[in-house]
């Protein structure tokens, strides 16, 4: 279980997260909506234990993240909005997380190929990862996370800048994770995507979580005027 209490984050003078309280239960699929600059990426980095420089409390399954971020990072992984690639082949990129966990060569080989196959990129296996197209890179980024078989996944705008075919592949992968009972947190600009994938929804504005609740409920009757404005704005 993910539990944030009174989290504040500042960059210099600028307050980017303001009193964020968040609880995500095991198996939930949480979509975080909000305009760009709302603080979504900043929040995801904190949730993923990549940034421990914040005020407030965050426990991940009872672990104090500030005290032991390394342990938390073994249980959660984040797929960045910008799919950075290591300067190696696609295979090596995807194998990395298994290698640092000390799995055997044989297991890694099997597992990586299985994931490549499921995302339809087996033929990219030996290509230089930096030379791929944007869509291919995003699939590799998703594969790198899937191969780890963790309980908790974080995606930052996983389908922005993708064409329809790649959107479908990535969405299917996320849907599959949710079906298998994983905890999934993702951000998106796309209201319909949030509705398609999530069962819980948070709306962020100016560093605050304005409203959080069951996705369908929020779509039917948003409890905050700002949420209502955001949702209706999308359909105008």
């Amino acid at each position, binding site marked *: 279980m993910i539990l944030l209490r009174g989290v504040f984050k500042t960059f210099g003078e600028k307050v980017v997260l303001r009193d964020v309280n968040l609880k995500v239960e095991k198996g939930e699929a949480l979509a975080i909506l909000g305009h760009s600059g709302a603080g979504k990426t900043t929040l995801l*980095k904190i949730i*993923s234990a*990549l940034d421990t420089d914040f005020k407030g409390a965050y426990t991940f399954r009872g672990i104090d993240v500030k005290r032991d971020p*390394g342990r938390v*990072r*073994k249980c*959660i*992984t*984040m797929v*960045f909005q*910008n799919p*950075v690639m*290591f*300067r190696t082949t696609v295979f090596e990129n995807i194998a*990395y*997380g298994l290698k*640092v*966990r000390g799995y055997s060569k044989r297991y890694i080989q099997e597992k990586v190929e299985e994931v490549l196959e499921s995302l339809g990129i087996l033929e990219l296996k030996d290509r*230089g990862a*930096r*030379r791929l197209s944007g869509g291919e890179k995003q699939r590799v980024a998703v594969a*790198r*996370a899937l191969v*780890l078989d963790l309980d908790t996944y974080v995606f930052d705008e996983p389908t922005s800048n993708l064409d329809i075919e790649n959107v479908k592949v990535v969405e299917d992968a996320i849907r599959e994770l949710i079906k298998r009972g994983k905890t999934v947190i993702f951000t998106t600009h796309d209201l319909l995507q949030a509705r398609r994938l999530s069962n819980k929804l948070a709306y962020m504005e100016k560093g605050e979580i304005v409203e959080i609740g069951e996705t369908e409920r929020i779509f039917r009757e948003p409890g905050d005027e700002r949420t209502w404005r955001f949702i209706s704005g999308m359909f105008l």
Partner: protein
Amino acid sequence: MAWDYILQGLFEAFKLIFSGDPELYDILLRSIKVSGLATLYAGLIGVPTGVVIGLSDFKGKEIVKSIFNGLMGIPTVVLGLILYLFLAPAGPLGFLNLLYTTTGISLGQMVLILPIVVSITVNSIESVEEDIKYLALTLGADESQMMVKIIEEASPGILLSLITAFNRAIAELGVALMVGGNIFIKGGEMNTRVLTTAIQMYVTRGEISMAIALGIILLSLVYLISMVVNYIQKRWIEV
């Protein structure tokens, strides 16, 4: 008339090169060995130093970096003089008996190119995107595994620093001349003559064709290495 003199020299130079003149190739091999060792020493010290500086964050880091940067351009004549003063029999390091030895040249050139290796290594470590660090961490790497990954990502740049350093070492004259002394005795084992000192000597002696031949060899070598560097930058750094 004026051109004849150069063309004549060029003609004889090519004859020397293609006839496999033993003296010429003896000098070439010594040059490669001496500067290769200098690069090896500089790499053994400079790469770890550069990696540590690049990965760490301490007060005065910028000052340390600018010192190494500044030292990159040190005139070889001045360095040669300083090394001579230290290594001369009466100097503080005279007891090492390194003056007029190839080991002396290698160590001197190491001092010359160490700043190059350190500076370029620091640069390549620092130019690894911050996102790479986060990527390694979020895929489950611990701090030391993450650092190894950053070094791996910087490795083409580090290799580049070594090649650049070798090029600088093999092409410099000041250290080789003042520390090495351009000693050459046929069949001798203590010879210290290298490409640059030989060129300088043959010119002053008026043996133009030998000077040109050695010049062509040095130029080709440096040019070839630059092409390798180019290739590395194009093919590897982008991948």
